[in-house]
């Protein structure tokens, strides 16, 4: 190994070379992951005339967004409320048989223990059940190439493994050569290698964290462009009695699905935005608390594929 000239470069020059390799690895990882999703070769489907709130929510933010949307729906209909310290609590109101669908029923069940808002995202059995119920919707979205294809996951793993091997391998080789020479000043190189691997994983995460494929994103973007203007109008009617408020009820779910709770900030229903953003990192389209390491697994919700 001592015969390899690159490994015998003096420290600063080697670090320059090392930096160059890291940049190439990151660029290659970006390209691999980016090119694994070529669903945007087809234009997005036309925006629906009556958008399905659950479809939009699932596409926008996976199970987390579905939970937000369902909670808002149940609150609008008087089945749940928000209590002190962000607890979601059931109300006195009991649903009539057939009044709630299976997902709403399951969520109402989850609320009986009066969990903190963000704990709902961590309720694994709730997530599992919702995913089961969302399976037909998921299949439909997948058939339209609106959900990230499997190939993204495969290429992300390849990029992570391959990139890590190159970065760590190069660093170890240099450390070995230096160690053979008897010099031990490699702390900075160790730090740089660790930081580079971290950046590689962060990049892979950022590129794959959302549920929607590129075509799915274009579809959501078209919906925002087509219907976003309604949001302002609808927000203006929140808390006002009368027919406008009821009309908002219909539009609300779709908009919550599309934007999360963030638009409610500054309205009489701001507590939703607050309760669900505390501890959840984001009230909007991003991951909830349960993301952790699994979040990259094909969606914001970490719900597997």
């Amino acid at each position, binding site marked *: 190994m001592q015969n390899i000239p690159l490994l015998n470069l003096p420290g600063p020059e080697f670090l320059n070379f090392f930096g160059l390799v890291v940049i190439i690895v990151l660029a290659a990882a970006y390209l691999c992951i980016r090119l694994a999703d070529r669903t945007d070769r087809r234009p997005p489907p036309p925006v629906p*005339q009556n958008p399905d709130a659950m479809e939009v929510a699932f596409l926008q933010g996976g199970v987390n967004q579905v939970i937000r949307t369902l909670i808002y729906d149940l609150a609008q209909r008087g089945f749940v409320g928000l209590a002190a310290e962000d607890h979601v609590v059931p109300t006195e109101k009991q649903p009539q048989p057939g009044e709630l669908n299976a997902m709403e029923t399951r969520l109402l069940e989850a609320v009986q223990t009066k969990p903190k808002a963000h704990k709902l995202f961590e309720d694994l059995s709730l997530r599992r059940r919702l995913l089961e119920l969302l399976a037909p919707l998921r299949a439909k979205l997948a058939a339209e190439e609106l959900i990230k294809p499997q190939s993204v996951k495969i290429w992300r793993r390849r990029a992570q493994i391959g990139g890590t091997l190159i970065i760590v391998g190069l660093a170890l080789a240099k450390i070995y050569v230096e160690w053979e020479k008897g010099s031990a000043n490699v702390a900075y190189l160790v730090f740089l290698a660790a930081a580079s691997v971290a950046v590689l994983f962060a990049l892979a995460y950022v590129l794959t964290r959302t549920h929607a494929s590129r075509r799915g994103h274009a579809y959501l973007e*078209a919906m925002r462009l*087509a*219907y976003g*203007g*309604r949001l302002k109008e609808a927000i203006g009617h929140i808390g006002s009695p009368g027919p406008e408020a009821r009309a908002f009820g219909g539009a609300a779910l779709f908009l919550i699905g599309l934007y999360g709770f963030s638009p409610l900030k500054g309205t009489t229903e701001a507590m939703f935005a607050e309760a669900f953003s505390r501890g959840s990192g984001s009230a909007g389209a991003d991951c909830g608390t349960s993301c952790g390491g699994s979040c990259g697994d094909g969606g914001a919700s970490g719900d597997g594929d």
Partner: protein
Amino acid sequence: MTAIDAPALGSGIGYRPQFRADLFAYRDQIDFVEIIADHYLDASKEKLDELELLKSHFPLVAHGLDLSIGSADGVDPRYLDKVAALIERIDPPWWSEHLCFTRAGGVSIGHLASLPYTQEAIDVVARNVEFVRRRIKTPLILENITCVVRIPGGEMDEPEFLSRTLEATDCGWLCDVANMHVNAMNFGMGAEGEFERWPWDRLVQMHYAGGRERNGVLIDSHDATTSEAVWMLYDRVVARAPVKAVVLERDEKIPPFNELIDEVARARTTMVENGRWR
């Protein structure tokens, strides 16, 4: 004879951003959309995205405001370039402009000004249309406008002026029935035989709209529902000539969207009854 060879588009609406969400929510009830070309000439990214969105959901035609096809000093080539780029982008079956002038001596006058009904004006328009055609191959159709005052020295009346202009330019006609009605009200009805003197064989598209009266004069304010009198004229025109597309124009006091849908449906019914649309 038909003025241009293009498919019928049906009953559409002039696009205004205020009702964008409703337009998409009710898109099965709008056959096509007419955009104002000038709103997309120096367009922001957001306007271009909006245009793409419209294009991917509706057949589009473009309606220009400031070409000034009747200007004696010619059309502005820079403006024309921008329109050409837009037309290329949306690829409509035809596009339209007003038979008027909006610039004089290179300065914009801010409104659609009527041309004198003279042979000289016809020659100017013909020359300008030739210039435009060299840049934009998509067929141009010309719209009759309302007249605030009749320019003295006219050698003919409006139907003859329009007919001879369309003849000289070989352009199709965008018949705005509201404008026709306004002119008839403000300057007196022609004799019963006058209706037949309009260039029906060049008809391609129609506009209809509501207006209002100000100081005893009817204006094309596009801020009210279409009046019964305009509907009567509309029905008569659709029965008379093979119109391909009709557009509701509404710019001010925009009502709940279902009221606009009702007007669009009303217009479509007449088209269907006369075999102009499926």
